[in-house]
Structure formats: C-alpha cells, structure tokens
C-alpha cells in the first residue's frame, strides 16, 4: 500500500483489517490522531482524506491506497502553532485535549471551505465531533476567532 501522509509518501505492507487510525498511531507513530469510540460517532480520529474530513477509525488503511492523508501533525507548523491552534489556545477551546486534534482538523476543513462562517455554521460543522469537556462554547469562539484572524 502506498499513500501520502502529511506530504510524505509512505509505502507499507499491512494487514487488510488494520484501521487507518491504528495505522497512523501504531505504524507511523502519529499519536496526535486519537481514538475515542471506534464506531464513527465521536470524531476524535478525524483526519483529512484528500482534503475532506474523515473518520480514521472507520476506514481501513488499505482503503486509503493512493490517497493523501493529513493529520494534526500535518497541520502543525514546525515552529509554533497555526493561527487556528493559536485561537484554540487563546480561547481555551479545550480542556483535556483529547478531542482537540479532531476538532482542529474539522475546523480547518470548515474554514478552508467557508472562511467566514456564522456561529450557527460553526456549530453545525462542529456537531460532527464530540467534546466532553467544554460544552463547545469556547470551541465555537476559537473557530470564530481564527476566521476573523484569517480575514
């Protein structure tokens, strides 16, 4: 199997039953992608698959042959943080931080497609993922702040 992960071409022989989330975490040591439910509801494992958000726990790694996968590591600059990450930090749009990589990937996708979302649009997009800590209020603030910062 051959795919691109965070811009790097990866070639591996793997078991057909290995999920993309296990492949990223166990085989590539990209542990920023978290696993929260393994049945596609919580979104902690959200990555970008050819630019679209996807549940890494519901994908088999072999399904991603030829695809480009972007994880939280791929959205993090070598030095410092991205504006979206800075906004999450400034607004404390997280507490335990377990959902955060998935939330940031999701928000990244939203802002890429809709650079100036309304609060309702942000909520609708974020409703794809679960956060058990924040009640979402500060996450919505963070995404709105990042949108303003980009504008």
């Amino acid at each position, binding site marked *: 199997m051959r795919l691109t992960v965070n811009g790097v071409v990866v070639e591996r022989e793997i*078991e057909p*039953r290995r999920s993309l989330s296990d492949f990223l*975490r*166990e085989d590539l040591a*990209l*542990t*920023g*992608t*978290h*696993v*929260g*439910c*393994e*049945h596609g*509801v*919580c979104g*902690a494992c959200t990555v970008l698959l050819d630019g679209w958000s996807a549940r890494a726990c519901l994908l088999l790694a072999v399904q991603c042959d030829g695809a480009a996968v972007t*994880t*939280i*590591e791929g959205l*993090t600059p070598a030095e410092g*943080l991205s504006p979206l*990450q800075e906004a*999450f*930090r*400034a607004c*404390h749009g*997280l*507490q*335990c*931080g*377990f*959902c*955060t*990589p998935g939330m*940031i990937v999701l928000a990244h996708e939203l802002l890429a497609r809709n650079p100036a979302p309304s*609060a309702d649009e*942000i*909520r*609708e997009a*974020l*409703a*794809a993922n*679960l*956060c*058990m*800590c*924040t*009640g*979402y*209020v*500060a*996450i*919505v603030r963070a995404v709105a702040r990042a949108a303003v910062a980009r504008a």
Partner: protein
Amino acid sequence: MAAPWVGRALPLKEDARLVAGRGRFLDDLAPGRLLHVAMLRSPHAHARIVAIDAAAAAALPGVAAVLTGTEAAAGSRPIRPLIPTAVPVNDWCLAVDRARFVGEPVAAVAAVDRATAEDALDLIRVTWEALPAAVDAQAGARGEGPLLYPELGTNVLWHDTLTYGDVDGAFARADGVLEERFEFSRYASTPLETFGAIAEWDAGTAGYTFWTNDQRPGLTLAILAESLGVPQARIRLACPDIGGGFGNKRRPAYLLVCALLARRTGRPVKFVEDRRESLSALMQAAGGVMDLALAYRADGTLLALSVRDVTDEGKNLVSPAQHNLIKLGNIANGYRIPAVRYEAWSVLTNTCPAGANRGIGKPFMCFAIERAMALLARRLAVDPAELRLRNYVTSAEMPYTTPPGAAYDSGDYPATLRAALERFEYARRRREQVSARAAGRLLGIGIATSVEPAGTNLASYEIITGRRAASGSAEAAMVRIEPDGQVRAALGDPPSGQGYETVVAQIVADELGVRPDQVDVARGFDSATTPWLYLSGNYSNKFSVTDTGAVVGAARRVRDKLLRLAAHRLEADVADLELRDGAVAVRGVPTRRLAFRELARTAYADVLGLPPGEEPGLEARHAYQNPLAKPMDAARRVPSQLVFANAAHCCLVEVDPGTGGVKILAYAVVHDCGRELNPLIVEGMVHGSTAHGIGAALLEAFRYDERGQLLTSTFMDYLKPTALDVPAIDVGRLEHPSPYTPLGAKGVGEGGAIPAPAAVANAVEDALNSYGVTVRTLPITPEQVWRWLDSRQFNNVGSNFSESPQ
C-alpha cells in the same frame, strides 16, 4: 508588589501541546515488547460460571497468556471495599464463579496486538448457567428479587434513617405538605479518552510499574499493593495526560488484571477499554427513586424535609452508599430547612457498578429539591424566584451549618439568583413568554439554584460503619528550585483537563516572584517523584480546597529558604529582602541582589557557603489538610464535603409539539466559586459542567431491560450532546472568597452539572404548563414529550399533592 498572577485569565501552558496533538495520553505510551489485553465479558446480567475452557485461545499464535477468574483469584487477593459489608464478600479483579452484570470481565488475554487478543476471546468456551437478574433496586429495598451475594442474605448494602431536628413536629404544624416521587436515570460523563493501564513486572526488583489514567492514584496504589501482596514501596504508579475523568476513571481491577498478565509473561501489558466496554462496565452515576415530602408555611417558608431515597448501586462493592451520603450532605441545598429526615437504601443490582460521576448524587438531590420548589411555587402561585429568595440561607447567617452537618462558609445566595435573573433578563423573558404562548408557542422558563461543595471528607462513612475512615481532605505538593535556578513543581493530583500546570505555575509564581512561564509543573503524577497521600487524586472539586494549600505551603518553604540563604550571603536582614524577577534583592537597593541561579549554586554545590545549620538543597514538600473536615458528632452530623460555592441557572426552552423536541433558546448562569484562580479555566468548567447537566436532562440514559441487558451501549443509542444541543451558555460571576481555603477559592468543576438537569426540567414543565405535565424523571426525550402531549389527559396540576398538613 506586582499584580498577582493568580486571578488572571492566562492562556494555558498545557494547551500549547494539546492543540498540536502533542499530548501524551495512556494509549500513546508503548514500552518495548508490549502485549495488548482484551477481556472476555459476561453476556449475562447474572450467571454462574460453570466452566471455562481457554486451551484453544492460549494456543492461538500471537497469544502470550490467558487469565481466568480462578487464576486471578489464586494470584491476587480480593479488592477491599471502602466500607465493609456485614459478611465479608470477595470481589476479585475478574469474576470467579459468578458474573453479576453484562460486561463484567471473566477472562483476559494478552497477545501481540489487540486484534489477536480479541480473536483469542472468540476461542474461549464458557459454560454459563444463567440466573434470574436483579434489576429493580426498589424491589431490592423491599427484600425481593434474586441475590447478587447469597452469603449477604440481602441486596441492601445500607439502610438507615437519619433524623435531624423536630421533623414530625414540623410536619404537624405545617400549613401544607408537598409530596412527590422523582426518578433519576443512570448516566455518565463519558470522558472521551477511555480508561486504560499499562503494567510492567520487574523480576529483578520484584516490583511493578503502572501507567494509568486512573484519577485517584493514591488509593489505587494502596489497593494494588494489598491485592498483589507487594509492598507499596515496590509499586510505581504514574499518570500521563488524562483525557477527561469526571469521576469515572478508576478501576483498580483492570490494573490488577494487567499486573497478573505482566508477571506471567514477563512483558509490559496494556489494556485500553473500547467504548462499549467503557459505557457498559466502567462507571455510571447511580440512578434511583426518591420520595420527597416538604413541609411549608402558607407564605412558602420551608419547615422540614423528609426524603426516602433508594439508590441503585449496580454491582458496586467498592464505594457503596457514596451517593447516599453525598445527597445527605447536600439535602438542604441553599435553603434554611430546620428539620430534615433522610431514609436511605443502597441496593445492589445486576447492572454496571455505580460510582463517581460529576457531582455524585448532588445532581439528583438538586433535581428533587429544585423540582419541588418549582411545584411549590406553582401551588402557592408565587414566582419561583421569589419562593427561593424567601428561603435562602443568607450571607449574614454564615458560617451556617445545615441540620445534617454541612457547613456553608461563604457566599450570598440571594445575590447570586438576583444576578442570574438580571443577566437572563428574567422579567422581559416572562413577558415575552406570555405573548409567545398567546401565539401558540410552547415556551418555558426554568430556574434552578444549587450549592456546590468542594473537597471530600470520607470520614462521613462513619455514619454507616461507626468507625472513622480515611478523610481525603488533604493533598501534597512539591516545589523545587533546580541547580540551574529553574523552578519546578509537582502535585499529588493528576489533572484530567483542569489546567493545573498553569494554575499551579500561577500560584508558585506569586509566591516566588517569578513569571508562570518560568515554573515547570510536572505533567500528571508519578508516585516515585510526586508527593502523595492515601487519597491523592483528581476528584471531588478538591483543587481549590486542599491542593492550593499544598502548593502554597511548599512554595512558601522554598521562599523562606531563599530568603535565609540570600540574607546570609548579602549580609542583610530577611525583613529587608524581597523576591522579584527570579532573584532575592534588598528592598530599594536593586543592585544588591542574588538570582535564584546563584542561590541554587550555594544550596546544591557550594554548600560550604550555606548558613550554619542550613540543610543543602532547595526543595520543599508540603501536605495540607483543610480545617473544615471533621469527624461525625454524637448527633450523627458530619460534613461530607467542605467548602461551598453556589450557582443559579436560568433557562428558556421551546418545545416543538410536532416532534416532541426540546430546544434551549437561552441559558444563563451566575456562579460564585470564590476567588477565581484563572477565570479562563473557571468559565470553561462552568460551560462543560452545564453541558453535562443538559445531556442528563435531555439525552443521556443507560437503559437496562428486565433481564439486565444494557440497551444503550454505544454512542449511537447513548446520546451525548453535540454543538447543536448545547446553547451559548452565558456566564456571570460573583466572587465571595472562602475564609477556609488558602487562596479564597471554592470548587467549580461540578457546579453546572448539579442544577442544570433541574433547570431544564423546570423549563420544560413550564412550557407544558397548559398540558398539566409534571416532570418526574429524566431524560426528557422527544418520545417522552410526545407521550405527554399525546396522552391529552390535561390532569389537574395540583391533583398529585395533599393540600392538608400531614
């Protein structure tokens, strides 16, 4: 002196790594030669294990070991319960001869990866003899139903009646009595990271190392040592970043299973729950049924409260009756109720063990009281806010001790409610509600207020056992200046999202005159390096009440030593010195100063330069005990928790009669947690905690069928609130510092979760006023609403109550 760092809304140190996916959680750890564990779990709520044949599983390539209950019982001792049962019962880390809930582990496999371990589970043959299941705690309280432990002769772990004041007299004199029955479903705060552990056996030192996201490492370490028969000194237990806890994350049994497999295989062993395992077998808030009677005068003054409370513990032998005791401690809420009676049952059932979950018992207690206040207001035709204002304990009465012994230390409950009403624009919304109703919309407004205790005093178990138990009202911390002058701190309480690395740095920064970014606070917990006590851990809102004291105490010891060293070297009087910018300087003479680095050099290296008799090093540990913790008195009064914050919630909902859906249109909170150490963290806690209450009110319930099968074991059927379900919660604050905490702070983690279920329920009932609906149970699902509306009974709201005094 510069403005203190404590109190500032400082962005969090730990957030910098967490937003980058650079947190280090339990499942991110992978020691070499690691094995992965999967557990075989009971498909029956109650069944005898006749035989287990694990030979085929053990022979599967990639499997290193299989552990059955019988082997676990041979290799470890039973887990000691927090309160002993009348007859000792043995509770091992795996079910031995009988499974007592769906999902109880009966065998475990260690294999090269989780998938192989799960393959092996399919090869284990268990011969079951299904038994009738006890699923009804009410029946258990009556002495009916199958027994979980025949040797006990009952499923009732505790039954008692506690009376404080002249309850019978108050009911006899009352102008009226409100009686109602409330039910509370089981739910859980379901941290997004599931529970897990890694165990490693070191044959050379005959000791274990554990990595775990267990929230209460102190007690867990003690249980492990006792069950494994290993001295505590040979157990190292460490916690990495913890992905949420909310009380749920403790299960020493899983660590024991890993330890036994690690010892057998000689390899490190990891177990991480999957979501179904977590929902069905980790920890659920106890459900139950509460019968409440409230005696009142015609003007709405509360005279007495009588509660009969049947708590469904599931298979909980570890901390039974904890929900009961905490309900008792918070039974009066913020009200002046002179006489209280509490009759409690703690009942075993064949369901998931009940246990700690954000607020433990308080959300149910508050639900019952605040629902009763709403019903009483309606009965007396008094505004529900006004009825509460007539009954609050006032700030002038503080410190105020409730009949069962809770000590309300500070706050202004009427002011909190008034501020919330103002923030919510209560009067305007009431007017709008009238016009909306005229237009046919089902709009409702709900108010609920609560006290929110912090810190625990498990000595309250004396009510049950008659013996003083471990209190838990203490914590330990360490502050050290390293040989290079850098400041480091560690705390016995591993955070699970509360930002302690930042807040501890703020506290230490103030004490030592440095910036918070110059203070490194240890991530998590490590029993080998962190100071800790028997009940060290992350629970019960305790940071403000005990942890702050430990940090302040340790920092002050280091500060005192810095001053002594500097006084000696600068030949100055300590009284003339000040700590500023990472140095000790003579006040007013900025050139006469010694940086921490130079003082550290004296302390660690140039020890001949120490003042006579001074010990080398620049490190201090401090353990702090909160002074409010007390043992039980002769009248069986005891503070089960310590310092009290308070909050008022106002909620506007609209019910859609077509779908039965409830939408929260506005939600305002005003809370008072004393001095806010970091308002950014505090506000987040209020949001998140309130969201948990909203989930319990509208969505979440663990439902069991009559055979004890869990019907909601995934996030497809156990529904959590999403960003579309939680409104933009508007938070205001008052700050009445507690005189009984080192920094004036009070608890904040549970405050939203306590009153929110009642606030939402009161709002829905208000919205359905014209239908004569009384909300007696949660969650208020669309199906429930639709049934209410469809029943079209329009029963008289007052018909449930006896208007005459008892």
